[in-house]
């Protein structure tokens, strides 16, 4: 047993004795307060160190696919690809996937291709829109008609300009 041990023991035992006789409790209370303050300062210090690390790792906002112009060029699909009624194709805008199709009635439509079920990109399959991951199915209106998807696909406004296709957000609230 070192000297420090002995001293600690003496201090402890005398503290108990003083408590028992209801004497000076200030010694122990002072020590307790010191420990609380030290612990609190330590935690505050750790928090100060952790905050920059959290900010560094915090998720970055995704870039707006429509940019400042409010519209995005559709890649991999040309107006000719969707000229015939009932035709359609998978394309992309920004970093995202989309489906552009012309309904049998002749209306041009586009949807963000992210499946509302688990986030796979759905596939234009001729007569319907199909998700390979879990068999979700959507009609040409983007409505979920079979399988697990809980909601319709997010529609996009699509238009042709100078021989290329653009998509823009619809007025409806964006989903997923």
């Amino acid at each position, binding site marked *: 047993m*070192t000297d*420090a041990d002995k001293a600690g023991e003496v201090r402890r035992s005398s503290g108990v004795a003083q408590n028992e006789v209801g004497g000076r409790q200030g010694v122990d209370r002072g020590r307790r307060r010191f420990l609380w303050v030290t612990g609190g300062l330590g935690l505050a*210090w750790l928090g100060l*160190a952790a905050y*920059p*690390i959290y*900010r*560094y*790792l*915090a998720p*970055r906002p995704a870039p707006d696919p429509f940019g400042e112009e409010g519209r995005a060029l559709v890649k991999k699909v040309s107006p000719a690809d969707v000229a015939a009624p009932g035709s359609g194709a998978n394309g992309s805008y920004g970093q995202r996937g989309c489906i552009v199709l012309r309904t049998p009635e002749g209306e041009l439509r586009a949807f963000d291709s992210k499946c509302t079920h688990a986030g796979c990109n759905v596939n234009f399959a001729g007569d319907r829109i199909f998700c390979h991951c879990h068999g979700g199915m959507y009609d040409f209106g983007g409505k979920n008609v079979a399988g697990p998807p809980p909601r319709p696909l997010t529609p996009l406004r699509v238009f042709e300009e100078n021989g290329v296709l653009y998509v823009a957000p619809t007025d409806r609230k964006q989903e997923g």
Partner: protein
Amino acid sequence: MTVDDTRRDPGIPVAAGREERSPDPRFVPIPPEAEERSSDPRFVPIPPEAEERFSDSRFVTIPPEAEEALPPADTVTGKLGRAFFRRLPVWPLVEFLSKKKVPRHRHSFWYTIGSMALFFLVVQIVTGVLLMVYYSPSQPWSSVQRIVMEIPFGGLLRSIHHWSANLMLLALFVHLFSTFFMKAYRPPRELTWLTGLALLGTTMFLGFSGYLLPWDDLSFFATRVGISELEKMPLLGTWIAGLARGGPDVTVDTIGRFYPLHVVVLPLLLLAVLSVHLFFVQVQGVSEPDSFRALPPEQKRYHRFFSEYLVNEIPIWMALAALLVALSALFPRVLAPEADPAAAAPEGIKPEWYFMVPFQMLKLFPGSLELLGMALTGLIPVLFLVVPFVDRSVPADRRGRVATRVGVAFLVYLVAMTVWGMVS
């Protein structure tokens, strides 16, 4: 599963015979008396005291001194502690560490330098892992630019990584010389000394490999010069330089080599050698200088390592953390323009200070004398490697005094050359 279960043949479905409500026609019912374990002729009955021993043999007995030291058996911590030490017979280790002590004398301060280097290593690992989150070896410069310009606190983390690397090397050099002058390399600590030299070499290699990764013109030319010096080494130089670069010149392929070296291979090597180094220090205890050893036992004063000494280290580590943040905020590491292999080297380009001595030697020994300069520089690590096998005796004899003088000469030479290189 109880002991009882294991002894029963699992092929005999006991339940089917016993439970009359589901008679399975494929099985013969077992007569009730056969159910009794003691009457089963296939098994020899085990006496109760042997059974107790059998079930307990997997556990070790807690030594009485551990029973005393652990919290009371009816508390949660006491139960957990007992459960742990009944499974793992490591109490002697705990006892050994609890008795570990650090001598107190007027040179005690130098013991702290090693733990400072350890602190900087921890900072390097933490900030290095964080930098890897956004660093991309295929877009080295632009990804570092993104860290510095776009990511919150990215520039700060990068600067801390830079400053901590420099201070770690500084701490290692101070540790090297303080150990040298305290003669701690003498038997029986030669292996600790040699692993320490290996740690310094690995850390310098880490500094060199990490320097290339931002791919700015400083890092590009520093790496090109560094490797071309290697190339001048007789015999294997060309071969080693080609392997290091991955071709005749430094390209992004060189990053492909340096990046895994810097983030995986060298850190693993460093941690492996470091654990050996620290293991030796733990087993042998920290070295005592001759003056302390000569004291009569009652005058020798010690700190207990756990936790007297360790607690005193905490404010030092916190001060170092504050120093790192302050240096990084006041002198942030700049990102120079992207490396352009065709452009002229930037004006006033110099290696980091820890490579300044060979750099200065190259300037002093031009042309055909260059090999001599390299040989003289190469002599320094060799002398450090052999010193524990030359200066061995306690108390110091003539060799010990020579070693001290050579050490002083080295120190003066290294500092002078470094300062000269930095100002010239």
